């Protein structure tokens, strides 16, 4: 998600994109945030870039809210939609995992139970 390719080529945000390149460290994220804070016009791309900063800072709900705003302002942009879907997929995958775990009372315990019983002897 928020790959360099997906971050697009919007000239206005070239400096922000540069900070977000690769696997951005804390300092790079702080610098990207400062650049975004300094921007007066908050268009769809601004919200998308802000979403990227939240994502790399592991603030997934904040990221989602920014993506929703970006999509609202530019509903046809496929980059926004792709990352939004990716984010929702994270949540769905976790829910699916929990559902699987709760449906198996003793997940993978076929060997474990024997081992446990032996330990008790």
């Amino acid at each position, binding site marked *: 998600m928020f790959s360099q390719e997906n971050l697009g080529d919007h000239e206005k945000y070239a400096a922000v994109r540069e900070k977000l390149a690769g696997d951005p460290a804390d300092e790079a994220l702080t610098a990207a945030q400062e650049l975004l804070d300094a921007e007066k016009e908050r268009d769809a791309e601004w919200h998308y870039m802000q979403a990227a900063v939240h994502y790399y800072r*592991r603030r*997934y709900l904040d990221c989602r809210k920014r993506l929703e705003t970006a999509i609202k302002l530019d509903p046809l942009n496929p980059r926004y939609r792709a990352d939004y879907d990716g984010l929702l997929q994270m*949540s769905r995958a976790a*829910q699916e995992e929990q559902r699987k775990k709760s449906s198996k009372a003793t997940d993978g315990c076929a060997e474990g139970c024997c*081992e446990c019983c032996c*330990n008790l002897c």
Partner: protein
Amino acid sequence: MTVLGYVKYDLPNLCVKDLQLYRAMYCGLCKGIAKSCGQRARMGLTYDVTFLSVFLHNILGIDVKIERQGCIAHVKKRSIALTDELTEELGALNTLLVYYKLTDDIADGGKGRGKRVFFKKGFRRAKKKYPALVKLVSDYMAEQEKAEKSGASSPEMAADPSACMMQALSDHFLKEKASKATRSLFYEFGKWVYLIDALDDYDKDKKKREYNPFVLTYGSESRKALMEEHGEEISFLFDTSFYAMRESLEEIPFSFNRDLSDNVILRGLPLETARVMRGEPIRVENVKI
């Protein structure tokens, strides 16, 4: 806001060997607290730091030796993990977290002054023996207080200093074994601990008009109303964190059996989250082995 007491295992899916190990580590940590901070500080023993002890020993490849020993709290001898340097320092961490939690409670106008007296000496001993650890914790506590006073604009922003503290603690203890995956896991773990406590305290904080990131962001009348009105967002907040924890966990090389760590992170934390979201009382599991 220092929070303790939410990190639990999922008992029906815990093997007996892992329950025995957890119990031995719990008693071992208690003895570790005694060594680093004195007898009175043992009253602050928590499952949260016990879990850290289990997890860190495993990643660091420090084998735990378990012996039948006596203990002042129990008549019969029991299996106890022998204390080592790591356990003693974690004992100091346990004391620090309890001390700061009580300090936080006092600052919020609550009780705790009497209890804190029991930990004052232990806190001083920790400060003398582990100055780097104390500085790390106190710096992030100050950051947390600052974030809360400035009215952090979202639950995740509010949780950031606590999450960063846990991440920094993982670096402190793991040293060269620290990795991107361990940092990410501990960040998410710290975030979870902060947010689950905030969600659990929703009604109390709303009534007392104390800082709570969920009250500030959503303003619902009660925790129940919050879940009815914004339950999907709250679930998303925790689910994405569980996803990130699972991803990180898969990349961490464990030195020994990882069943216990997996049980707590992949099953215990989501179960506890579901309990708090439903507003149910704390799970008490008392199994004798």
